[in-house]
């Protein structure tokens, strides 16, 4: 579904990604972890072309992201993305947030978009908040709306960029629950997160990044059991040690 091959990226002369290669199969859940500054967010943003890269290629559903001839907006419409800071549109109500791209990008009718939006809003447990503005919702609620907004587009895969990092601890679970449910339904997911509990529960594979490189790319059991690289062992002992 997502095939990343030899991707390198530079900011000026500083190399942020070095020869990253991996694959996410249909229905697979891959968790990307690593210390901050390791390039994991940059990598996931390369997958839908939000960040350009200078070498290598990424193909989503067989369509090249790096190819200048690719219709990026069209491709992005098929890939859902959830951001660290939610990024709901603050000047629109929840309903408007949910229907905007359905109407403008997919060309659905207003009624159809609204029905879809409300159904997904119900699924993330926020039906009562349809007419509120994002600013009147808690962080956890905003992130659940953001997930519903991405799902409205019937994505073939979902990208999560640290979806719980900006949340208060007591709100993290309500968001993770939605993500777990999504994973169990068979959604293809690539998730950048520090939530190792989530990784243990639903991930098929775990990718560990450091210094812009993919240091470890292993099945979940292997990764948590006996990580091959010393760097990953150290990382795991630090975040699982308390």
């Amino acid at each position: 579904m997502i095939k990343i091959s030899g991707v390198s990226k530079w900011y000026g002369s500083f190399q942020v990604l070095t020869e990253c290669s991996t694959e996410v199969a249909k229905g697979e859940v891959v968790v990307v972890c690593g210390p901050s500054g390791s390039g994991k967010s940059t990598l996931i943003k390369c997958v839908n072309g939000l960040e350009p890269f200078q070498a290598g290629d990424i193909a989503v559903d067989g369509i090249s992201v790096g190819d200048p001839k690719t219709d990026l907006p069209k491709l992005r419409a098929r890939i859902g993305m959830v951001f660290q800071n939610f990024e709901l549109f603050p000047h629109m109500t929840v309903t408007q947030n949910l229907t905007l791209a359905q109407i403008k990008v997919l060309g659905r009718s207003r009624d159809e978009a609204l029905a879809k939006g409300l159904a997904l809003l119900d699924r993330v447990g926020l039906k009562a908040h349809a007419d509120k503005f994002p600013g009147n919702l808690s962080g956890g609620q905003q992130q659940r709306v953001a997930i519903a907004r991405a799902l409205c587009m019937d994505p073939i895969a979902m990208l999560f960029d640290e979806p719980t990092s900006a949340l208060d601890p007591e709100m993290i679970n309500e968001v993770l629950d939605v993500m777990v449910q999504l994973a169990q339904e068979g959604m293809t997911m690539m998730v950048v997160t520090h939530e190792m509990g989530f990784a243990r529960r639903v991930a098929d594979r775990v990718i560990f990044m450091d210094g812009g490189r993919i240091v470890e790319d292993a099945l979940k059991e292997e990764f948590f059991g006996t990580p091959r690289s010393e760097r990953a062992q150290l990382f795991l002992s630090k975040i699982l040690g308390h």
Partner: protein
Amino acid sequence: MFANFDFDVIERSWRYLFVTGMAFTLRLTLFAMAGGIVFGTLLAMMRLSSIKPLAWVAGTYVNTLRSVPLVLVIFWFYFLVPYIGAWVLRSDTPIQVGAFASSLLTFVMFEACYYCEIMRAGIQSIPRGQVSAGYALGLTYWQSMALVVLPQAFRNMLPVLLTQTIVLFQDVSLVYVLSITDFVGAASKVAERDGRLVEMYSFVAVIYFAACFALSQFVRRLQARIAVVR
């Protein structure tokens, strides 16, 4: 002190001052504001564009026009536009451009530079993630600008845009150098005809002050009301 003053001149001429003069001033202000904001927003988008030549052209345009006194620009345009128009239309004789059209064009081009800088700040005040979120949903550049970025930028910048419009309202009085009958032009005609310069110009000043003061109070209230909840 006012013994020698004759304020009756105002009573005799107010209808002319407002119906002819002020009407022109307001019309020019509103049209120039609308045109200036539209053109200024386009300039701002160009200045922030990743396409370097576009950014350079807009930057040079804005910086050049902001470095020239408005009066000069008004003169230039008034005298040059007929010739430029003739050149563009390949006509042998200078084209006829009315005083209103000429001054409107001047103000749109000139004020756009200031509106541009305001909108540039407005666009930059929107977090980068908002644009990313728009793109991630499949919106194009123009869609994410029109639906996500600009509505928020306008909202954030509305008080500053209106304040600039108050400045524009005052600047419009400069068309007086083209002998156009705006509010000041009308007043000066009456003043010279009746030899009542001090009375008329005092009256004009009071009206300008009252209008601008009221507007700026309105802007202050608006500012408190529209702060976006994030």
